[in-house]
């Protein structure tokens, strides 16, 4: 493998390096802060029985949830994209929506519904139900953008649906699947709110404690280093599994109507499965919101400012989606189109911030902004940058998965015809990348609408989003007053999810 692959255009390499530098800020901050902790304190902090225990519980949870998310996400994606599932378009929206429900909302709903969710089982259930869309979205985008005729050819050669899936479909969706699984794993390392509610302590819980009770940034940073190490291990695993898996097809859509796999007698059980998934992942939290809306003693007509909060949530989400996708694009192009040791390392480094709890990332940006660009401190652009840093990996996996499917020959042909690389990028690569860009933006938007920790620390003073207002009311135990904000959070996310699943539907386009 060469260092940076073939003929890297310098502007592209420069853009990729800028992204990597920005996203590395939290990790740099953590290492610098941890460096200030003395050996004695470091030993007492790291060599505690609690730490060993937490490492075990974090690893067990990460393994179980990631595996379940793969099963649920891939099965749902295959059914909605490749079969004659009745109401597939509606299901496409419904299976993605749980991402728009904040984990502190779903965690609270489950706890108020049944006490059985405390501990490991509950943590696995609640995390799986809110995270499987992170596998579903890139896999579905991959299936949608992929030429389905290969499946048909395999079937015509006598392979059953199971064998077609295993031998044709699975190898092609593998990059998307592994990317999604990686994001799920990294998210679990840094997640705090939901696990605190179901009382399942993880490493992130411990980091929050150092901040909350000790006011000791050094100790918190030292524990965050452990998360960085775990993150590097996950990245290494995914790199090995992905390998140089590259899929290519000729043509941008091959405009051929392909008959979907018939579910036949399986239709009813599959429909029941989808209904069950929607009930657990959407029905429970939305039902609990409805209950508080009707029964809560603090329920009043929400103030007019709720629309302003919704507006800020929308615009911040759109801007963050744009920023993260733009920052991720050069990294994805470098990693896929100019595959080399340096470019792969550059791409890997952009995942590090995802494994850190939001509070660590936010405090890192507080530090860097105030010391180097004080003018942007507590301004919307800095908050958008924070979202981009936090959620860039989501954009990256969607882009990377789609890019691996576009044959590099098309872009090379463009260049051989004398076009500038930028022209080739805009006229050839980007249009083919459509579903990937849409999935990238959707993932970032949906995650941004529910983000709380970084928003509280970095927002312009006085700016309220739906998530911050929801937090204000629930921390005062005013669940009735909080419910409309959570409901709007879901509604705001529903619209883009719906539009995205419609606009990039290749079947409706190829019908003309």
């Amino acid at each position, binding site marked *: 493998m060469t260092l940076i692959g073939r003929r890297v255009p310098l502007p592209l390499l420069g853009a990729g390096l800028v992204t990597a530098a920005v996203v590395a800020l939290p990790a740099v901050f953590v290492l610098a802060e941890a460096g200030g902790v003395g050996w004695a304190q470091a030993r007492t902090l790291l060599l505690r029985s609690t730490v060993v225990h937490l490492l075990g519980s974090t690893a067990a949870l990460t393994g179980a949830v990631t595996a379940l998310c793969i099963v649920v996400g891939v099965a749902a994606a295959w059914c909605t994209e490749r079969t004659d599932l009745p109401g597939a378009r509606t299901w496409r929206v419904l299976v993605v929506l749980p991402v728009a429900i904040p984990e502190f909302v779903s965690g609270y709903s489950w706890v108020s519904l049944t006490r059985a969710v405390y501990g490991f089982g509950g943590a696995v259930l609640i995390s799986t139900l809110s995270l499987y869309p992170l596998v579903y979205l890139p896999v579905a985008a991959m299936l949608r953008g992929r030429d389905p005729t290969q499946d048909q050819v395999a079937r015509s050669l006598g392979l059953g649906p199971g064998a077609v899936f295993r031998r044709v479909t699975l190898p092609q969706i593998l990059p998307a699947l592994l990317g999604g699984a990686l994001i799920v794993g990294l998210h679990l390392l840094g997640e705090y709110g939901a696990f605190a509610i179901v009382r399942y302590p993880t490493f992130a819980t411990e980091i929050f404690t150092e901040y909350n009770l000790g*006011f000791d940034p050094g100790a918190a940073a030292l524990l965050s280093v452990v998360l960085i190490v775990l993150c590097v291990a996950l990245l290494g695993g995914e790199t090995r599994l992905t390998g140089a898996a590259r899929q290519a097809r000729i043509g941008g859509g091959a405009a051929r109507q392909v008959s979907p796999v018939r579910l036949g007698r399986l239709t009813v059980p599959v429909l029941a499965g989808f209904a069950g998934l929607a009930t657990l992942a959407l029905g429970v939290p939305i039902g609990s919101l409805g209950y508080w809306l009707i029964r809560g003693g603090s329920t009043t007509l929400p103030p007019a400012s709720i629309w302003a909060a919704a507006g800020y949530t929308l615009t911040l989400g759109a801007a963050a989606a744009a920023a993260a996708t733009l920052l991720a694009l050069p990294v994805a192009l470098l990693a896929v189109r100019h595959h080399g040791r340096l470019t792969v390392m550059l791409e890997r480094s952009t995942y590090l911030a995802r494994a850190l709890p939001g509070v660590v990332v936010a405090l890192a940006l507080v530090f860097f902004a105030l010391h180097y660009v004080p003018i942007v401190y507590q301004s919307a652009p800095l908050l958008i940058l924070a979202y981009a840093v936090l959620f860039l990996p989501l954009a990256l996996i969607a882009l990377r998965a789609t890019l691996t499917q576009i044959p590099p020959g098309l872009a090379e042909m463009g260049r051989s015809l004398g076009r500038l690389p930028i022209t080739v990028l805009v006229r050839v690569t980007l249009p083919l990348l459509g579903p990937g860009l849409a999935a990238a933006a959707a993932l970032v938007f949906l995650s941004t609408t529910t983000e709380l920790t970084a928003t509280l620390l970095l927002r312009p003073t006085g700016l309220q989003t739906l998530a911050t207002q929801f937090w*204000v009311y629930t921390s005062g135990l005013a669940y009735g007053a909080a419910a409309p904000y959570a409901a709007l959070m879901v509604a705001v996310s529903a619209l883009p999810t719906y539009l995205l699943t419609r606009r990039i539907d290749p079947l409706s386009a190829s019908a003309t």
Partner: protein
Amino acid sequence: MMWTIRVRTMLSAWVVLALAGLLVVAGCGSAPSTQGAAGQTITVYSGQHEQTAQMLVAGFTAATGIKVALRSGGEAELANQILQEGSASPADVFYAENPPALEALREKNLLSPVDAATLSAVPAAYDSPQGQWVGVSARSAALVFNTAATSEAQLPASVLDMAGPAWKGKFGYAPTETDFQPVLTAVAKLKGTDVVKQWLADLKANAKVYPDNETLVAAVNSGEIATGLIDHYYWYRLQRELGPDKTASALHYFGPGDPGSLVDVSGAGVLASSKNNAAAQKFLAYLVSKPAQTIIGTSDSYEYPLGSGVITSQPLRPLDQLHPPALSVADLGDGRSSLAMLQQAGLL
């Protein structure tokens, strides 16, 4: 190809939308921070009950003409934020929930002395011993119990007894809450290190851990657990939300001088780096004035007002009928020692 055209249209629409979004957000973002030509603006970082803080801010602006940019968050997150910001902090005032958050800033010399007149409006026991922050309101530790599971007569006079085997599985607490630290420190100060070690070991063996007091008080009310150690106002806020008919719990106060009867203070301080020191001092003076203390005494925060002789109108046991242990704010420290105790006990 139709499909490609659609994608391209969608992409350009999206780019335009995103750029517009960036512009709008940048415009809106800078709006709140611009100062009105009419007067001065101070920035208040508040870890307090948001609705009460907003009423206080509105009252202050009406009385003085000074505008307030209110930034609400968790008190610990805000204290950590100020620690990172250091002398570049945009905050003029930090209004906390518990002394440790303020003490952490004082130790780093990030607070400046409070005006003597402001300090004298509140009994000296509730102020920073060094005069670096002023007590604004107070809360009492208390035991919430499910009225179907147990009765007042069965409850002990000391929080120490709640850790014993008799209450195994029937007592909940939230060790990661900033509200639990002062109680733990009080046990250590009043009873000594050996007792506190044993108490923590017993808690680990017998008591149930909750992530926060909001969850704990709701769990007791629903009968999930019989009793829980909270601050009194959590129960009042829950009762307000559920209504009396769905309240299946009540408050029990521990005996006089018990660590479980600790009264803890919410205070506010002026940042040493503030460029609006005079206006920030006025805000503190307002917080302990009669109008502000009346707002606190009648608001949904259900805390005890401390200053200017205001007595709460809420259905609370009056402050002068509480019998907290004789501990000063200095005795309760910055919380780091209680964190070390929790870590040594293997609870964190």
